[in-house]
């Protein structure tokens, strides 16, 4: 009962937050010191062309009316056209959102895969050199500017060693000679659906560097959280009892202690996902990854506001929904959360 009420409350709050976000994005749009009509009218418009654009975009309508139009557009997912390219934004999003989500999911997985085992190791060797090295590198991961890490990885793995691609999402050879049919938009899935192992391998290789860049910080956090959760549990009674019974140390770690590290893992999933969505702006530019981040950063330079608004809305909704799921999952794993 408590749980159901908690979930309901979280959902209502999330809906409210999304409404607030819409309002905030709209307000910011109003203070942009630029003329959308002249952007929409092309690179060298005449006064008449600008006037025509102003009418087409309803820029002279009263503020309230424009907010209503904006809110309706956001609610129906009809984001209109980009001022700059005049392409349908919804169509662009369909191509770019999966690319960003693929990166976010992959980097989250990578963060857990790196962070949790290292955390377990650090807890098992508490105070010894693996522990120290681990905690030092997790601090370094926090302090490392994403954009700088991306460049270093490119330099080492693409330029010097040359065994991973510099940038992009698929090799040109593949996308020209035998393009992947876009079904889900997730290249890894689409490659499997089409039974194309060559494309799968290629897409996978392209994912590694950007995902590694995005995973470094959450992996550090995952390591620290796992470590402290494990240490706490290892000191608990049933583990001590297991030890007394003569169970081997690895067995204790993986069968008794690790399941209790679920909570931290969930936290890290939420955090990593959010971090990937945010960091996409920086990482996608550097890796020429055709996702939302690159899309929005180009729009920012051009002050192409409908695009900026649409991406902000979509990313924020992804973020809010993700947080909602994490909160609910955490409440299910640990009912105390719902009561607090």
């Amino acid at each position, binding site marked *: 009962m408590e749980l159901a009420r908690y979930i309901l409350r979280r959902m209502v709050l999330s809906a409210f937050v999304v409404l607030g976000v819409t309002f905030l994005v709209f307000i910011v749009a109003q203070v942009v*010191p630029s003329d959308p009509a*002249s952007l929409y009218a092309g690179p060298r418009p005449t006064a008449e*062309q600008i006037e025509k654009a102003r009418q087409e975009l309803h820029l002279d309508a009263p503020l309230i009316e424009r907010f209503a139009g904006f809110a309706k557009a956001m609610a129906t997912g009809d984001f209109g056209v980009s001022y700059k390219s005049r*392409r349908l934004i919804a169509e662009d999003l369909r191509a770019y959102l999966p690319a960003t989500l693929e990166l976010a999911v992959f980097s989250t997985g990578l963060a857990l895969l790196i962070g949790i085992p290292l955390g377990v190791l650090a807890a098992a060797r508490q105070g010894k050199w693996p522990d120290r090295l681990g905690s030092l590198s997790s601090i370094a991961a926090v302090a490392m500017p994403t954009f700088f890490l991306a460049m270093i990885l490119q330099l080492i793995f693409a330029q010097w060693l040359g065994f991973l691609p510099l940038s992009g999402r698929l090799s040109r050879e593949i996308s020209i*000679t*035998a393009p992947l049919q876009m079904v889900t938009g997730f290249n890894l899935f689409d490659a499997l659906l089409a039974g194309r192992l060559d494309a799968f391998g290629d897409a996978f290789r392209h994912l590694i560097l950007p995902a590694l860049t995005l995973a470094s910080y959450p992996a550090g956090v995952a390591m620290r959280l796992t470590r402290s959760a494990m240490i706490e549990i290892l000191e608990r009674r049933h583990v001590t009892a297991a030890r007394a019974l003569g169970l081997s140390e690895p067995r204790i770690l993986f069968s008794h202690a690790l399941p209790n590290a679920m909570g931290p893992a969930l936290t890290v999933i939420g955090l990593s996902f959010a971090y990937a969505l945010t960091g996409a702006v920086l990482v996608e530019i550097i890796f*020429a990854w055709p996702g939302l981040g690159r899309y929005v950063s180009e729009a920012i330079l051009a002050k192409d506001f409908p695009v900026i608004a649409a991406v902000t809305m979509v990313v924020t909704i992804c973020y809010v929904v993700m947080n909602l799921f994490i909160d609910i999952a955490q409440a299910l794993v640990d009912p105390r959360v719902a009561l607090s």
Partner: protein
Amino acid sequence: MNRRHFLQTAALAALASATTSRWNLAMAEGNGSIFTLAYPTSFPDLDPATSFSNDGAVLANVYEGLTRYIPATETTEAKIEPLLATSWDVSEDGKTWTFHLRDGVKFHDGSPLTSEAVKGSIERTKKIGGGAAFIWGSVSSIETPDPLTVVFKLSDPQPVDLIASAGFAAWIYAPSSHDKDNAWFNTGNDAGTGPFRISRYEPGQRAVLDRAEAYWGKVPEGGFQTISFEIIEDTTLAQNMIESGQADWTESIPFENLEAMKSNPDLRVVVNPSFETLFGLYNVKRAPLDKVKVRQALSLAFPYDDVISAGTMGLGTRAKGVVPAGIWGHDAEAPIPQTDLKAAAALLAEEGVEPGLELVMTYSTTQALSAVAGELWKANLETLGIKLTLQPMAWEAQWQLGKSNPEAAQDIFVMFWWPTFVTPYDYLVSLFHSEEKPNFNLGYYSDPEVDAKIDEAAKLSGTDRPRAEKLFIEAQRKVIEDAAAVFMLDRPNVHIIRSDIKGYTDNPAYGHVTFVNELSR
């Protein structure tokens, strides 16, 4: 996996291997048939009526206009070449232009080129009124006395032969497409007469063009069958591609990296002047820039040579006024100032300008060259006691500020200009002719003598070009004398091509366009 799904997968696989084998075939022929361009930007609009951006690179291989402009070189004069029109003549008053069309030209849909098609194309372009459609502004009616003759009636004298050679909005397209909307073109359909047609278009990724059958023009031996425009925003990647032979052509490699590429025998670095000129318009409505001598002093303080060397690795050229070299009306002997800080200080002292003067220079955030120019100029002005604030802005915001109230606007407006069609008129009337409401004359310069000369020259552009040229040069000299602007430099066009490509020439009248039909390997 159910049966239907299985069949689908099988069909897809077959399709995939079919395209693979075609590609392999082309490869087997010694890579001879595909010309690959690593193009730095995407193509926002493929509609020949409204396109007014980098999409010209694609469209110029698909569509043709009535004429083509061939710029002047050191040995030859600029001229206008027949394209879809074979000849043309103009009436005494410059208001009636008659074009005779080439016989036997077919659009890609098989329909013949007729005067009706020309009329329909230009009328659609005018009616939509987007992009560069304004170049046809003076055309009041188009007549079609017979299938191969088009007559343009104008409201005022204009050089229609030049207008018809414009890089945008002058394309002729098939009648079957005249009722199509913008979206139809932007899904990758085309309706041109050119040597290539669009066979695949993936927005933001690539455009693939295949040779059109029954092209009317000459095709060189070993000409390319396919063009692939690969959109590569990352300059490092573009450089990798051209060095490894994955691409045959690229541009926008940082100037600093060109040295190494020049010494690479596989590559040819082609440097040409472009028609893009960089300048700063002085706000003549604001003190103390309303005084000629103060403006002259600022121009004397501009580090012309340093900007060319630091900003373009010495590849740019000194701007001789506003009309760049290669365009008729260019003034090679223009009395341009040289950097001279002492003379600048003397002029400032003469006008009683005290140290501590603060000026604001606006420029577009995307233009690194403007930032370099600004930073170097700022350092020079500092020695004269003038503080120059550099204000990068989004272009629309910069323009908006410039168009608002001149008294409250920037002091110096820095921008590039390139002509919509090749005429000095485009530069002079846009930037220095009096405007009631500022549009592109963002220094708000106004001089009746200059206005009269520009207007008179415009009238003569179609009928008496030498006389028009003389008037344009006179107007320009007055602008330089009045120091209405600081003419910073003419930007170089730098293209890198593989050295086994034959027949490459760069035509600055069509910026960043490669006419692939003329090339072979």
